[in-house]
């Protein structure tokens, strides 16, 4: 089932176009990362999905209904970019309030406080919370009542590495239970293994929308191969492979995806001389730069 369908959506403020003709679908149980520079239009897109900002043209369907409708809001969980709460309330009061707004029993709010690791601080005022703890409350309210669609804007900012790990565990469980997840982030390395699909926005346009493998193939970015040899043979190997000597016994070379197997065969043919081989495919960071920067130059 298509949880979110974005069809040729535009948003302009006067002559300023912030979102230009975006098409994107997110299926139930799918995790999609939305990447882009600051000001690429990610947050505007999310606000339109939420029904907070009117769409200039095109259409968005949340579970088949209009953004901002009661059904849509009942089924959406949202974690804003810099989440804030009233400091005079305790975490438990705030979360129970949100549970009541969604017609969910307050007990589920208490369970979630345990899940995000806030059971000890639940009855303290939110103004005494650290940024990470506030972010956890934010996450807890976003996954309250198992939403059909979760929109997470910069969800891991302010979280330490262990908390990030726990966060992605929660997101994985959500997706496994059938929630469609759209999350935007700048922390590219952590998204690589934790999302099913990557959408890249640049200057209001969607410049890429595919899984990591397809992005790599389309980008045709070079693969880095690092070969370690015995010291005596480094020069000969470097010469025959066409790579460059890095230090006494390492050689660095690059090749394209379709040449990879051939190059590896060439290397193993050297036999005993080769001590180690490292193959690094293009990282999401390089891919991201490739897609977003190339698009900007083309404009």
């Amino acid at each position, binding site marked *: 089932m298509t949880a979110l369908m974005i069809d040729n959506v535009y948003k302009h403020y006067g002559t300023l176009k912030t979102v230009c003709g975006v098409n994107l679908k997110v299926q139930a149980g799918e995790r999609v990362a939305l990447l882009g520079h600051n000001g690429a239009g990610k947050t505007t897109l999310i*606000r339109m999905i*939420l*029904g*907070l*900002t*009117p769409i200039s043209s095109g259409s968005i369907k949340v579970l088949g209904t209009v953004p901002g409708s*009661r059904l849509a*809001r*009942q089924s*959406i969980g*949202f974690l*804003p970019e*810099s*989440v*804030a*709460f*009233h400091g*005079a*309330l305790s975490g438990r*009061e705030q979360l129970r*309030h*949100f549970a*009541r*707004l*969604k*017609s969910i029993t307050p007990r589920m709010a208490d369970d979630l406080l345990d899940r995000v690791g806030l059971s000890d601080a639940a009855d303290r*005022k939110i103004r005494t919370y650290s940024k990470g703890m506030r972010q956890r409350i934010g996450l807890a*309210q976003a996954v309250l009542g198992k939403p059909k669609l979760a929109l997470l804007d910069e969800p891991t900012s302010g979280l330490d590495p262990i908390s990030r790990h726990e966060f992605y565990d929660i997101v994985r469980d959500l997706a496994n239970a059938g929630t469609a997840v759209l999350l935007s982030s700048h922390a590219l390395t952590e998204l690589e293994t934790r999302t099913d699909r990557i959408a890249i926005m640049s200057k209001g346009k969607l410049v890429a929308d595919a899984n990591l493998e397809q992005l790599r193939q389309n980008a045709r970015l070079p693969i880095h191969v690092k070969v370690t040899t015995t010291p005596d043979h480094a020069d000969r190997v470097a010469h025959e492979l066409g790579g460059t000597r890095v230090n006494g016994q390492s050689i660095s070379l690059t090749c394209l995806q379709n040449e990879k197997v051939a190059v590896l065969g060439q290397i193993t043919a050297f036999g005993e001389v080769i001590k180690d081989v490292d193959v690094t495919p293009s990282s999401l960071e390089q891919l991201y730069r490739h897609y977003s920067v190339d698009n900007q130059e083309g404009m």
Partner: protein
Amino acid sequence: MSVFTISALELIIARRNMWVATSVILMGLFTAVLTLAGGAPTGTLSVDPLTIATTSITTLSVYLIPLIGLLLSFDAIAGEAERGTLALNLTYPVSRIEILIGKFLAHLAVLAFAIGVGLGLAALLTIWQYGPADLSFTPLVKLFFTSLALGAAFLGIGYLVSCLVRQTGAASGIVIIIWLVCVVLYDLGLLGALVADDGGSFTKTIFPWLLVANPADAFRLINTPVASVSVLASGIGAAGGASGLAGQLTSLLIWPVITLFLAWLAIRRIEL
């Protein structure tokens, strides 16, 4: 019901922010002082001591209740818009009018509690001083409900400003100016116009309506026995007669409705 969920949360916040305590202490302190001090000059006159107390309290309430109303409400929408909690709340299945009404009910409850404590204290002190016999509590009940209506009108004005400005700092400045205009400058202006007109057509036709159009003045007229009005002498007395109780009540009741309606229009226009 989302409205009551929002009210419940708003009441917790009002309690934590000391708004409840501040309002109650202000009202309680001033009414107690006025009740105790108000009785002194009358001595053994045959005027109902509670009437004297309510007259003094009315004069005070005209200043105090609009102020409390505006202080409770100026941050209601602007503060949430600034923090970003308004946007988050609106992603839940709750409408903007429900948020507005929810907050209004909570703030009205705070006002009712503060006014109730103040007037209750006035009644108790009067009974303690003069005994329960021969006291008429009708003016006190009238004062309670009209105070609430006056407070509601200024709550509405506060929400309207809060929606339009969307910045807490600016909103607080603007409501103080509004307060000053409504309870002080408006009357001074009318007084000046009266003096300049010197009993002409303005005094007889337009002035009474201008006076009652201000909810603070309508409140003052309702709760002040005509005989005891001596400050503005014939002017206010004539005005009270011209607009009548119906006019005054209409003014007091229509202001909360109009300002809340305008605040609703304003909150609908906020693009997040």
